[in-house]
């Protein structure tokens, strides 16, 4: 009887965490869309929706603590509840990062910045997180290892994007021939003068966007790492 209730609680935890994962994924999707298309409504919806994710996180965390206290799980049950407990934190953090991305979308102004394919990076990050959530839902150890390998490519793309922004600034500065850093009206944008403060904001924002995308992927890898631990008792991907 008790074991049956426990099993039902474990099954419910898996489906609830997966459902939270899908919600977080939808928010990430909206944030990426907002970034891509400058959709103000979508961005605001993501920011407003964060409270819901935080509440879900607290509720499910509490469910895990109840299972620890009342059922004292061992072996694969223990690994599953412990992994879920950690994965909840990663999902909540992805939710936070999605609101950051939505905030950057609201402030978007890239007039002075080089072309970056953030849409491509965003799509890869989104797919990685989606696959990690599916791996958790399906107990898929092979998928977890594959997800970890994909993260290296995303890291490389993010690194290249950040480097491109900085390199572009340096090169344009050199081309302008102004070593004193004064605004001399020689900006590239059709004679549009540089507003140093505005450019600084834009550069910071785009670098933060790249960094947050990379972090979302890292949380996706964490989800895969904890899932692998739950399924195979393999801590290989946990660092």
């Amino acid at each position: 009887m008790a074991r049956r209730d426990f099993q039902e609680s474990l099954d419910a935890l898996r489906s609830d965490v997966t459902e939270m994962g899908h919600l977080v994924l939808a928010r990430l999707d909206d944030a990426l869309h907002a970034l891509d298309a400058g959709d103000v409504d979508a961005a605001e919806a993501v920011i407003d929706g964060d409270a819901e994710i935080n509440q879900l996180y607290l509720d499910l965390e509490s469910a895990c603590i109840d299972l620890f206290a009342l059922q004292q799980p061992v072996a694969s049950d223990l690994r599953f509840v412990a992994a879920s407990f950690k994965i909840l934190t990663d999902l909540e953090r992805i939710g936070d990062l999605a609101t950051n991305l939505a905030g950057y979308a609201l402030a978007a102004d890239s007039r002075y910045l080089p072309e970056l394919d953030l849409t491509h990076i965003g799509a890869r990050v989104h797919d990685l997180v989606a696959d990690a959530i599916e791996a958790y839902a399906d107990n898929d150890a092979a998928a977890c290892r594959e997800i970890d390998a994909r993260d290296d490519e995303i890291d490389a793309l993010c690194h290249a994007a950040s480097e491109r922004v900085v390199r572009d600034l340096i090169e344009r500065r050199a081309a302008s021939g102004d070593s004193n850093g004064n605004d001399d009206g020689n900006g590239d944008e059709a004679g549009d003068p540089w507003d140093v403060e505005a450019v600084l904001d834009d550069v910071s924002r785009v670098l933060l966007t790249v960094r947050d995308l990379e972090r979302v992927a890292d949380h996706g890898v964490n989800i895969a790492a904890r899932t692998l631990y739950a399924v195979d008792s393999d801590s290989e991907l946990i660092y």
Partner: protein
Amino acid sequence: MSEIEQTQTQTTEQATDQPLETTTGESDEEVREEWRQYDFRGSTKLAAGDLNVHYGDDHALKDVSMEIPEQSVTALIGPSGCGKSTFLRCLNRMNDRISSARIEGSVTLDGMEIYQDGVNLVELRKRVGMVFQSPNPFPKSIRENIAYGPEKHGDLETGLLARLLGRSDEAAREELVERCLRDAALWNEVHDRLDDNALGLSGGQQQRLCIARCLSVDPDVILMDEPASALDPIATAKIEDLIDDLSEEYTVVIVTHNMQQAARISDQTAVFLTGGELVEYGDTDQIFEDPESDRVEDYITGKFG
């Protein structure tokens, strides 16, 4: 006898020829081979080799081999009738008293075979003491419960004849009583009533008195058969703390049905399953976090049956 041996051989062959299908792909035999090569910390105190016990036609313990490291706590867990208590009782030859029991194989204590002719059972049981499920103090005073064994064995001479001959050692007795009661974490509760009847103590105190009594003959090993199953959580916690303290000096082997207790207090855990088989043996954290055997996983998570 030969029939039984034949049955046993067939069973072993079956197990080898048709390994149980497990999701990890490891048969019980493969799991067993893995832990047999397990390198425990510390040196071996007790070792069982291919131990088989039959009660009449009942094959209660099947080819059990395991090494128990000294100064540690080894928990034996498993469902009722799995042979864990039988195994425990083999470690100080308590099964010798059961007429239908037939024991084959080997048990060594510090490398010396205990199942051989000429072994002094009294000496063996002094070195390998036992604490039972229900506290069983003698219906005597607390002091006499402790001193009885050493006096009986002549380690303490406090009798009338000794006193008359000037060899009485009351001071040594008092010292022994205090030391054993302190080691069993009971002294503070009973030091002012050592002459009271031990049966007046609470269940938890009686059990600690039995542990103190066991310590009085200076054992190396303490066997415990469900020592806390009849106690409330507070008395249980005291016994568990005591077991932890005792393991610094003694080798403790404990049978328990309470898996959380085994997880809390033991360094190694051995899992016996129905049929008298030792299915897995290893570090307690490994057994409870990541058991190799699917049968063990099913048992400890409660999916058994």
